[in-house]
């Protein structure tokens, strides 16, 4: 179905494809503003610049990309057709399928894709300076991340909301489909472990944080019972009560910390691991209404509220960026937060916010069943991802407004920093930055934490940055409140991901094992649910424990694995979508997903290759394993280890991580080869292969565009 006559054929073009003078002026203005902001970012050397330039550069680029590139993809590549009925219209059942207002669905989809990911990666990537991270977040989302989300959403919508796994099986065959499925499951496990580790690092030895995050469980339970027995279905009212209780819990944490009860909430990292694993299991087997659903409401409200607050805060406070534009770690690859040089490791450290493979799972499934009109994939797919990218930009700003000395004292591994403020200040000096022990103690005191030294994982850094920004807007007395507010906000996201993710993992495992032994696949058979939940929790719990007890720092060791895994999933999603474009006779436009695919394959395979085969023990898992194994055999201790047990732990962890990395690469290679074969077959055939799309049905409902009397500027094209 060609959408409209093409203007260049000489036939009278439809009026809306011509830009009016007014919109031409507007978009020229936007382009100029964005270009000036980029210019300021690129040309400032040495002097401190305002974070507002970063915001302007991001928003200007997003606006242009949304208006022009996403429009191009919708019109030319996908040929979105508002005259064609969407599954929401055809299969409307009032529950799973119903045409949803695009603004509501945008909110839905955004809440589903955005979690803690875009808050963690940019903070870690700040070790290379603000410029590389910003450039990747913005160009990555425009040409890769948002494109992937939008196209997967569209292709799934044309197939009644099939999942990525099903599409892979249908389009590229059983082998590729199975490899994709196993890959997704393994990646999920690593993701949960790394996110849970962020929570552990943020809460360990912090009674305030531990108390307020622990309180979210009784609050969610209360909401669950309230919604089920007292006021069925009154979600807004319940959520407002929940958010109020949550704020009370944060205030209560401050009171607990200064009372004699504090000692009951000082938990070691190991204790927290067992609590999280237990929580994950219970949350996965309890009925949804009790814990999962209310927690989801709470986290959605907090998410939208806090992100809006942060955007306002950044603009009003207009903090200056203290971090350098590009640090020496970008060239040397010897940074303390994560090892390796800018290419490829920056691009896997920032996954969510620029390109996140996991979104392909969310974009195929629930959202495509709710779209009212085909062209709305622009707002919902592309627009939501741009918004997530903006969250990542704000996280980067929050990390870069900190004094670099403080940043490195918080994010370097404990083995480098040593136990005291004194030793940490020395270590930071060794890295080439300055902070005094007194300043470190004062910074911790300002947010009422015992110490900020070695609080890696991103969450504490973001929280300190946010408390700086908020306290300069709302007054400086509340720093500790804002710090713990931010910790709570991030922990809430992550716990929501942990229980939802465990459940998703359980469904996947039940599905896979169900092929071997039928009863375990049944979603109602209780023992089956318990066994599979325990397996999933046990799997991520193992990596979590290994990470938390890793003498070399779990974040430093596991975060690259997580980033590579997430980007490999993006490679799978982009390969499947490229294949689908080629198969449907659109090889001409295959570069739209093919170019980001080539990039992400280059990034992940270079990073993965280095992680497996590099001779440098700081980068290669096996190289590091050999160094520590040889030393352990000789009875020697190497930096990071305090006894021989530590040495053996390091050897085991490196072996497991290295093997896992190799398996990921192998699985994705299978998918890629399979896709390439199908593409070649499709090109040889010379005509489009049989489609898997649901047949065309004319739409009988009106979209918002035909109702609006006065369209938004440029909204028509």
């Amino acid at each position, binding site marked *: 179905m060609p959408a409209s006559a093409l203007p260049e054929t000489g036939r009278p073009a439809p009026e809306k494809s011509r830009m009016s003078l007014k919109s031409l002026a507007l978009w020229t203005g936007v382009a100029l503003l964005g270009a000036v902001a980029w210019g300021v970012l690129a040309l400032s050397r040495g002097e401190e610049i305002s974070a507002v330039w970063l915001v302007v550069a991001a928003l200007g680029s997003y606006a242009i990309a949304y208006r022009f590139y996403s429009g191009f993809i919708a019109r030319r590549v996908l040929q979105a057709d508002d005259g064609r009925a969407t599954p929401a219209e055809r299969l409307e059942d009032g529950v799973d399928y119903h045409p949803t207002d695009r603004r509501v669905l945008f*909110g839905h989809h955004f809440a589903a894709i955005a979690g803690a990911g875009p808050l963690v990666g940019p903070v870690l990537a700040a070790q290379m300076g603000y410029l590389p991270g910003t450039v990747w977040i913005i160009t990555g989302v425009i040409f890769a991340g948002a494109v992937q989300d939008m196209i997967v959403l569209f292709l799934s919508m044309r197939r009644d909301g099939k999942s990525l796994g099903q599409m892979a099986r249908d389009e590229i065959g059983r082998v590729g489909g199975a490899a994709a499925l196993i890959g997704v499951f393994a990646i999920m496990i690593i993701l949960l472990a790394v996110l849970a580790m962020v929570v552990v690092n943020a809460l360990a030895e912090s009674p305030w944080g531990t108390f307020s995050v622990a309180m979210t469980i009784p609050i969610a339970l209360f909401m669950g019972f309230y919604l089920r027995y007292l006021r069925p279905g009154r979600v807004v009212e319940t959520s407002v009560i929940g958010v109020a209780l949550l704020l009370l819990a944060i205030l209560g944490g401050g009171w607990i910390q200064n009372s004699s009860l504090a000692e009951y909430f000082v938990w070691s990292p190991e204790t927290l691991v067992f609590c999280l694993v237990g929580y994950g299991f219970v949350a996965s087997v309890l*009925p949804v209404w009790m814990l999962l*659903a209310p927690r989801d409401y709470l986290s959605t409200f907090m998410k939208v509220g806090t992100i809006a607050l942060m955007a306002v805060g950044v603009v009003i406070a207009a903090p200056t960026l203290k971090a350098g534009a590009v640090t020496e770690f970008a060239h040397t690859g010897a940074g303390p937060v994560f090892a390796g040089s800018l290419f490829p490791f920056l691009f896997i450290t920032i996954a969510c916010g620029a390109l*996140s493979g996991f979104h392909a799972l969310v974009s195929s499934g629930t959202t495509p069943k709710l779209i009212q009109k085909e062209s709305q994939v622009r707002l919902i797919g592309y627009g939501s991802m741009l918004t997530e990218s903006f969250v990542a930009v704000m996280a980067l700003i929050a990390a870069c407004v900190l004094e670099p000395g403080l940043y490195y004292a918080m994010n370097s591994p404990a083995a480098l920093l040593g136990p005291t403020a004194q030793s940490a200040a020395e270590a930071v000096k060794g890295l080439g930055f300055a902070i005094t022990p007194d300043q470190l103690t004062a910074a911790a005191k300002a947010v009422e934490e015992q110490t900020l030294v070695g609080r890696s994982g991103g969450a504490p850094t973001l929280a300190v940055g946010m408390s700086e920004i908020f306290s300069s807007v709302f007054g400086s007395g509340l720093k500790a409140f804002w710090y713990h507010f931010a910790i709570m906000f991030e922990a809430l996201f992550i716990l929501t991901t942990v229980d939802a993710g465990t459940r998703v993992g359980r469904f996947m495992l039940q599905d896979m094992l169900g092929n071997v032994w039928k009863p375990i696949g049944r979603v109602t058979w209780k023992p089956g649910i318990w066994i599979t939940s325990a397996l999933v929790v046990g799997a991520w719990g193992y990596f979590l424990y290994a990470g938390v007890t890793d003498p070399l720092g779990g974040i430093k060791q596991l975060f690259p694995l997580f980033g590579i895994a997430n980007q490999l999933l993006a490679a799978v999603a982009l390969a499947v979508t490229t294949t689908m474009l080629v198969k449907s006779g659109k090889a001409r436009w295959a570069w739209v997903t093919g170019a980001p695919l080539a990039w992400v394959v280059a990034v992940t395979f270079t990073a993965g290759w280095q992680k497996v085969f590099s001779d440098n023990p700081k980068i290669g898992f096996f190289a590091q394993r050999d160094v520590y194994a040889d030393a352990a055999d000789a009875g020697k201790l190497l930096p990071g280890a305090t006894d021989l047990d530590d040495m053996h732990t390091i050897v085991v962890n490196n072996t497991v991580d290295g093997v896992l990395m190799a398996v990921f690469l192998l699985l994705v290679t299978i998918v890629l080869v399979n896709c390439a074969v199908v593409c070649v077959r499709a090109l040889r055939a010379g005509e489009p292969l049989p489609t898997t799309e649901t047949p065309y049905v004319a739409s009988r409902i009106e979209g918002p565009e035909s109702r609006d009397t006065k369209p938004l500027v440029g909204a028509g094209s």
Partner: protein
Amino acid sequence: MTVVRRAVGVLLWYARELTGEAEYDRYCDRHRRHHPHAPVPTRREYQRMRTLWREGESPGRCC
């Protein structure tokens, strides 16, 4: 004043739609159209059914 009231109205509409609170109204509406003679479920009954359906759904949440 009317501006404030309208803004609150819009916000409430959005929150009700986003959280799925408005789902019940839509369901009843549809139920009356398709089965005019059958009684619509009460809110309590509907929410029970809804949570039961959700039990088998894979929650779409991401990092």
